């Protein structure tokens, strides 16, 4: 089993899901000025302070006295750590290092034993290669280094200075080492610079892909993992999450959609969303919640009966138990057994509609809420927009969400952001607690969690159709 050790940077621990695998050799690649030395020293400093793991920093070029001085600006007293035998900043030549590493009881082995070393930073891999023209020989040097570090179970960062000349060198090194982290400094908004960190490889770790922004602060490197928002976190306190029926989605939502929250599912016309919705709504029914469904123009009650059956829900039974109600905007056949549960609103103007629906909701919900019953609402916002107009949505949607939150109900609304326009779409995004998006690009359908009360977001996931419940899988 792989064990992990903290990286010294909280955000990086999140990206590699817990820390670096113990005993792994990781290349930190970056152009001058990206903060490789700071990241390396932070790994050792925090390792010594927080994890009680001693480390050595090996510098081939820079004088240790310079490093001691520079690192005081982050409040790191390296000499004090050296006195405690928690750190050594070692200065030697690459050839001395390699020869001493190979030698039984050589200087390298002596230091490792002396301080019970667990972490190593080597600055830099380029200098270790300096003067070696032959690629095979270069590879052998890195291979030997990695093997020795692995033998002592040392978690190591091998700093690699990226220059325009050696950009091709990284692929060769990345085969040999266990991980590759790339630091970049890119132009941002014309006049600013954006520092990003990307984990390109990490054996034994599930990594959060993509570029993550970091800053060099008074306390060292501070990294903010991409696709995470925290401002809505409070919403989930003391909430119960109800499964969506889709395991990958539940995982993203820390268990499911929290009670008392409103989500929007944004789709484009090509995307198949009916399984996502059916899985979510039927899971609420199976969890004992009562449901109000605003029917869309695309699915009649006959269609719904069929699809919910796939998820183990007999709608007719639920209607009989008075646990589901439908709002119908269209003239179309309705199964006889469903008649009592359908509220026809086709001929109503907007004022009549809002008055009737709210009165009905109040009658149905108020007493139930007192009795501890939970309600779930599905809104087809596309129907509302086409039948009642965008302004109607803007006017009443916030009120609906407030009512839903206050009564402990939950909601999922279906919308097509492209169709309703940027302004209304951003209003919906802002008003809702969570946003899902599914779309078709080329021959694939994608799904992304773009906002959630838990503060999580996801990268775009592939949507695959499968033969068993819930009939879709996110990859």
């Amino acid at each position: 089993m792989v064990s992990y050790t903290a990286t010294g940077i909280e955000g990086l621990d999140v990206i590699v899901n817990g820390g670096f695998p113990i005993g792994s050799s990781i290349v930190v690649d970056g152009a001058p000025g990206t903060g490789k030395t700071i990241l390396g020293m932070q790994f050792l400093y925090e390792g010594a302070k927080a994890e009680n793991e001693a480390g050595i920093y090996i510098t081939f070029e820079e004088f240790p006295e310079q490093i001691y001085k520079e690192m005081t600006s982050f409040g790191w007293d390296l000499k004090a750590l050296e006195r405690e035998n928690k750190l050594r900043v070692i200065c030697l030549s690459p050839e001395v290092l390699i020869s001493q590493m190979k030698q039984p009881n050589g200087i390298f082995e002596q230091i490792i034993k002396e301080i019970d070393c667990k972490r190593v930073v080597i600055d830099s891999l380029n200098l270790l290669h300096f003067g070696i023209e032959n690629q095979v020989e270069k590879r052998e040097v890195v291979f030997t280094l990695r093997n020795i570090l692995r033998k002592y179970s040392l978690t190591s960062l091998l700093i690699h200075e990226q220059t325009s000349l050696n950009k091709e060198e990284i692929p060769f090194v990345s085969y040999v080492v266990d991980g590759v982290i790339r630091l970049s400094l890119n132009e941002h908004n014309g006049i600013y610079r954006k520092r990003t960190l990307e984990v390109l490889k990490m054996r034994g770790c599930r990594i959060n892909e993509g570029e993550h922004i970091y800053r060099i602060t008074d306390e060292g490197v501070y990294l903010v993992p991409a696709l995470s928002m925290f401002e809505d976190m409070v919403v989930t306190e003391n909430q119960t999450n109800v499964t969506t029926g889709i395991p990958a989605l539940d995982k993203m939502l820390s268990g499911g959609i929290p009670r008392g929250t409103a989500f929007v599912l944004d789709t484009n016309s090509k995307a198949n969303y009916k399984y996502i919705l059916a899985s979510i709504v039927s899971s609420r029914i199976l969890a004992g919640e009562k449901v109000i469904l605003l029917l869309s123009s695309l699915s009649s009650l006959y269609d719904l009966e069929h699809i919910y059956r796939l998820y183990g829900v007999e709608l007719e039974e639920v209607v009989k138990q008075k646990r589901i109600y439908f709002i119908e905007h269209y003239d179309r056949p309705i199964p006889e057994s469903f008649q009592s549960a359908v509220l026809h609103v086709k001929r109503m103007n907007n004022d009549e509609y809002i008055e009737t629906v709210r009165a009905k909701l109040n009658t149905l919900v108020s007493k139930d809420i007192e009795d501890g019953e939970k309600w779930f609402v599905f809104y087809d916002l596309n129907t509302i927009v086409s039948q009642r107009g965008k302004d109607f949505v803007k006017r009443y949607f916030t009120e609906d969400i407030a009512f839903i939150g206050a009564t402990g109900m939950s909601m999922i609304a279906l919308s097509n952001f492209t169709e309703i326009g940027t302004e209304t779409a951003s209003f919906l995004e802002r008003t809702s607690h969570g946003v899902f998006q599914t779309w078709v690009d080329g021959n694939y359908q994608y799904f992304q969690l773009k906002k959630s009360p838990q503060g999580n977001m996801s990268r775009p996931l592939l949507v695959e159709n499968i033969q068993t419940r819930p009939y879709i899988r996110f990859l």
Partner: protein
Amino acid sequence: MVSFHLHPLQVECTLFFQDNPYTYETLKGLAMRLGRNAEDLAAVLDQLVSTMVLEMNGTGDSAIYRYIQPVTIDLQKEELCEDM
């Protein structure tokens, strides 16, 4: 009266090791770090080894010089111990 003559290169070398106490270098490597001629430095290093400022591991060109850190006494701690 006994007079001491300190070679400037000897001082420079001692200070370098004092500031970078965990340096492990060959004569060639030290000459490069200090920006001095290896021939001039060789005699100074021998002198520092003989006075136990430095330690030499190995022989010939691959011999490695390292600093012997002076034993420091924490006076404050000593006083505390005496008071007890």
